[in-house]
């Protein structure tokens, strides 16, 4: 913006301020769900044995290297011998074992911990070696390990996880002012592979996207982690002092329909909905055209991505026919929309499009997270909803058994299991199959893939093009020279 400080101010700076929208309520993702905590802490403060790079590849993190046994059940990780926790303790195999056993214990209440249920046993042959044996072969597990379930804790550092984070990452939490900001300080004793550039990184939280944009314009923040007001990108693009990065995330904006009950248990009605919706129009109006049409539950950064946008082409005539066939003409249903900008925006336009095909959506806004999670997600008392499923590789969760989509998961279970246990090739193919089945079953609408819309001072470097993991890694960030 015109009032910004411009690139010049970036010279020689050793700190950076990043604006984010969703704020962590505390620092403990083991008991608190939500994307904000891992976004801030993973890879920066906590590390797993592995991490995901920009291309979606698994890369070493705390583990220098690993080997997979021939039966594809046992992973043997060689830990970085120099790794230390921010309290000075070295990172040992015992710590890893402690951490991962803790995930499946009662201490963890974050339901994502279930991803580690597959572990059969953890051995620590020596101080720097960990051998993890799975119950069955799994292609996805290593990938999952890069997420928060793989975070390695110091046994001395878990007393007050909500307020103090002791991790092995390149940064430590210098201060945490709830609702306002999280300040990271670079660790001088960090010996790992991804040391940070900047001395201080501040995450500042803005519930309101416009306030964040204003803050960037007036030079109070340097980066907006993900601009939630896409209409403003044009303005920033036109401004030489700012740069705009448009990439992808793992977040599929899913138009969920209750497959198990009510109006949408009838597949014809779901199909009608998918024919009736013009995803491009939704994307254009709701999110300023920023984002990608995917047609399925898999982002392009995943190995098993396939463009499924042509499965349900927009065809109002067809949709009307299907509605007719199902006898759903003029039916009313409740469209429970979480109180989130993209969701409310999408819902309005979707509702209007559904009206065209003879379905009457009664939009009911539900507060997010509290009410939406309880009523729509947990109690599943809903007909249609829309939400961004932001976690990486979450297709099997969202369409898994007992999830709020109500999808008949038996239709993909076997394929998915086989894929997971099979070779890498089989995995890719199998998962493609799963994704296509889900789309073809009209299990849900896939409105668009949430964009990674980063706006930053033109001098900031190392901004991630795509958000492939749950973390917003800050170690790469820096200021361009000159």
């Amino acid at each position, binding site marked *: 913006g015109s009032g910004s400080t411009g690139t010049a101010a970036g010279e020689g700076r050793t700190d950076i301020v990043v604006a984010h929208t969703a704020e962590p*309520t505390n620092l403990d993702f083991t008991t608190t*769900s939500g994307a904000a905590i891992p976004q801030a802490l993973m890879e920066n403060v906590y590390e797993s044995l592995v991490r995901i790079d920009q291309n979606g590849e698994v890369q070493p993190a705390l583990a220098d290297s690993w080997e997979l046994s021939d039966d594809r059940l046992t992973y043997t990780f060689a830990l970085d011998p120099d790794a230390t926790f921010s309290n000075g303790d070295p990172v040992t195999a015992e710590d890893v074992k402690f951490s991962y056993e803790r995930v499946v214990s009662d201490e963890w209440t974050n339901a994502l911990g279930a991803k580690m249920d597959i572990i059969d046993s953890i051995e620590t042959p020596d101080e720097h070696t960990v051998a993890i044996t799975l119950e069955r072969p799994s292609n996805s597990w290593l990938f999952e390990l890069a997420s928060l379930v793989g975070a390695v804790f110091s046994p001395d550092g878990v007393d007050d996880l909500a307020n103090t984070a002791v991790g092995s990452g390149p940064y430590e939490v210098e201060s945490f002012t709830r609702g*306002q900001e999280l300040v990271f300080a670079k660790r001088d004793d960090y010996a790992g592979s991804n040391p940070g550039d900047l001395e201080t990184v501040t995450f500042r939280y803005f519930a309101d996207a416009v306030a964040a944009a204003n*803050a960037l314009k007036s030079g*109070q923040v340097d980066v907006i982690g993900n601009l939630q007001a896409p209409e403003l990108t044009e303005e920033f693009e036109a401004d030489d002092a700012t740069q705009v990065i448009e990439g992808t995330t793992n977040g599929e904006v899913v138009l969920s329909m209750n497959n198990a009950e009510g109006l949408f248990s009838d597949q014809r009605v779901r199909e009608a909905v998918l024919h009736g919706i013009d995803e491009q129009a939704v994307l254009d109006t709701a999110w300023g055209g920023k984002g990608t049409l995917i047609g399925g539950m898999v982002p392009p950064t995943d190995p098993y991505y396939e463009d499924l946008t042509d499965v349900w082409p927009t065809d109002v005539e067809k949709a009307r026919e299907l509605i007719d066939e199902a006898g759903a003409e003029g039916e009313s249903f409740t469209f429970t929309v979480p109180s989130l900008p993209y969701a409310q925006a999408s819902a309005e336009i979707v509702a209007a499009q559904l009206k065209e095909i003879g379905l009457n959506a009664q939009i009911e806004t539900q*507060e997010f997270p509290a009410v939406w999670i*309880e009523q729509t997600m947990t109690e599943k008392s809903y007909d249609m909803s829309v939400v961004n499923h932001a976690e990486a590789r979450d297709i099997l969760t969202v369409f898994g058994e007992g999830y709020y989509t109500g999808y008949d998961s038996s239709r993909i279970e076997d394929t998915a299991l086989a894929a997971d246990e099979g070779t890498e090739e089989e995995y890719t193919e199998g998962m493609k199959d799963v994704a296509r089945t889900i789309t073809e079953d009209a299990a849900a609408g896939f409105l668009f893939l949430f964009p990674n819309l980063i706006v930053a001072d033109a001098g900031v470097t190392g901004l991630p093009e795509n958000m492939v993991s749950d973390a917003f890694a800050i170690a790469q960030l820096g200021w361009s020279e000159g």
Partner: protein
Amino acid sequence: MAALLNRLLQFLLTVWAATVVVFALMQVLPGNAAQVAAGLHATPEDVARIEAEFGLDRPLPVQYLDWVAGMLRGDFGVSYVTHAPITPLIADSIQVTLILVVTSMAVALLLAVPLGSIAALLRGKPLGALLSGLSQVGVAVPNFLAAILLVMLFSLGLGWFPSSGWQAPIEGMGGFLSHLVLPVFALALVQAAILTRYVRSAVLEVLREDFLRTARAKGRTAWSALLTHGLRNAAIPVVTVAGVQLATLLVGAVVVEQVFVLPGIGSELIRAVQNRDLLTVQAIVMVLVVMVLVLNLLIDLLYSVLDPRVRSGA
């Protein structure tokens, strides 16, 4: 003295009644706190365990007494959601709100007293009509609109002040003040408009008072009579209104806090509500209610300082 004791007793009774009301109100809050704390994929057992951990399974009277006893020690407990003690959170945020609101009110009064007096004295003249017209319009402007306009003009446009954020005074006076200016004016301008109207009518009222005529009969000019005898009398109704406004602003500032991303108590309340942070909501509501009650008490006391008639209980 008896009147003072009496007023204090009444205050304490009201505070007690408020604790009951607030506690009862919180019991009807849907969105089970334990459920929210347990997270997306929690099982009923998880929820039950968390309930037990937070003591939510105890009988209500026990929970109430426990809560009140805690408050008496200045301890609002530990949030189920943030896992952090609530008291420091409230202490920090109320401080922000108080600074914001009190400064705004002071600025508003500084604007309103002269403007309102002029508007009253020049009633029927163009300037007087202009001032009262402006104050009418000012009252009709929502303060968040004022806030947005101020940001556009002075932050994004002229770049004089930051558009958002807060800096505590100890981190540097300059930063503190520059962050304070816009929110204070966003609140103060609208408040000044409201108060100007009250000052104007209080001054008009006082201008009709016989004792002003007496003062002139004693040899004061009209202006000096107003300054020496009138304004203090006019202050009494204005103080009441300013007090009520101040009380309203404690929560009312939330809109401006949101626009400027200030960590005030109103913003904390909204955040706590969104997170279904029951204990924090309860604590903040209680603190706000008590502050309003304290404010009312202070106004009453101030009244008796200002007005000897009230002092002697006549």
